[in-house]
């Protein structure tokens, strides 16, 4: 996917990697960029959109959401048994208490990996994902390959992610079909006993909280 934005960006929002190199010329990509710009101009001209709102919402998601939020939640659960109980009983409230809330996170259920159960999350119908705690979804999560396959052959898909599960571990796939969004609570890895919550948060990955990695 071309990362260079085309033409002058009159809104001053070019966060793209305009590194001076010419990227592969993708006519589909250019068509899409033009299409979006055309729509933006029309709806701003009609007064349907306040350009400042466009800036604000992107800035909100890029600054205030993302997997570091979820990692704080998980690290807290690993180090505070009462919080963990609360998190598993009422994920939304426990997560709100850490300051994470909002659209696509109104109802979060946290599902715990154990010695015998590994959880993995998908949205086969679109790309539902817990935005406040994980940010917007990565490309692979939204891809037809992931959406089509993980419900039918989860172990093969997890192997592609480098995660080989013992046959004694049951896989539970969660397809986000309604309003609940799912967050996986990974098992605290052996060797992490001496780490405090901030250190633990650093080893927790986005994929670990989706279920496509062990941590």
């Amino acid at each position: 996917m071309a990362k260079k934005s085309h033409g002058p960006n009159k809104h001053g929002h070019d966060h793209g990697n305009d590194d001076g190199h010419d990227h592969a010329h993708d006519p589909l990509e250019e068509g899409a960029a033009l299409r979006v710009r055309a729509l933006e101009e029309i709806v701003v001209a009609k007064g349907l959109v306040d350009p400042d709102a466009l800036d604000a919402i992107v800035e909100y998601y890029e600054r205030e959401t993302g997997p570091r939020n979820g990692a704080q939640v998980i690290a807290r659960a690993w180090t505070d048994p009462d919080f963990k109980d609360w998190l598993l009983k009422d994920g939304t409230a426990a997560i709100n208490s850490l300051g994470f809330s909002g659209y696509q996170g109104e109802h979060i259920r946290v599902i715990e990996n154990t010695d015998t159960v590994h959880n993995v999350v998908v949205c086969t119908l679109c790309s539902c994902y817990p935005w406040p705690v994980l940010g917007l979804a990565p490309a692979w999560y939204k891809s037809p390959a992931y959406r089509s396959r993980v419900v039918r052959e989860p172990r093969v898909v997890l192997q592609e992610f480098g995660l080989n599960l013992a046959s004694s571990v049951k896989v539970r796939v969660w397809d986000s079909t309604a309003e609940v969004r799912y967050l996986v609570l990974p098992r605290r890895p052996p060797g992490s006993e001496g780490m405090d919550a901030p250190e633990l948060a650093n080893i927790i990955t986005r994929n670990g909280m989706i279920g496509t990695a062990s941590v």
Partner: protein
Amino acid sequence: MNGIHDMGGMHGFGKVQVDDDTVFGADWQRRAFALVETLAWAVPYSTDQHRYAIECLEPVNYLKHDYFENWIEATETLLIEAGLVDRSELEAGVKRFDINCENHAPVGPQTLVAATRAGAEMIFPADTSTAAFHVGQRVRVLNTHRQGHTRVPGYVRGKCGLIIRNGGIFQFADSLAAGNGPDPQHCYTVEFTSTTLWGDDGSQGDTICLDLWEPYLEAI
């Protein structure tokens, strides 16, 4: 609807590109995302209406286009349906008629961010209706094939599973997308064995859990 979006179980899409964790690969994708979120207020449209508009894209475009281009094309559809924009404007990239914004007020940055932080109201008090099913009950998913938006994937229709949770009473996506209001319904988590869904080609011992609204289910 049995659309191309309903791809759970399909073959043919290759390996997962596990290293591609791009959120926005280009600035136009950021702008597309922001437009969809912001226009939802002015048009207005619900998330489920937007999802349904995506589902109604031509299947070849759904697969060929970028994810965010599909979001934009769906929003164009909703704008056209609301009479706020027409096809010729989109093709030319210029405004050709003015609109009365009285019922289509743009959202300001503070309101939008505050509302996004607050989230949507989707749940209804537990005492507003009685649950038809209970945790521990086995149910069958109805075999429906309507044209409209629905959140019951094809791969569980007609299949039997176990209710493992009653999540509460939620707005009903099928009704909202059809423009018929929230029509609140109990929503259950139903667990299916992999072999129930995929027969001998399932993953022995593994399960799949879905949140399914009461009207999708029947007692067995």
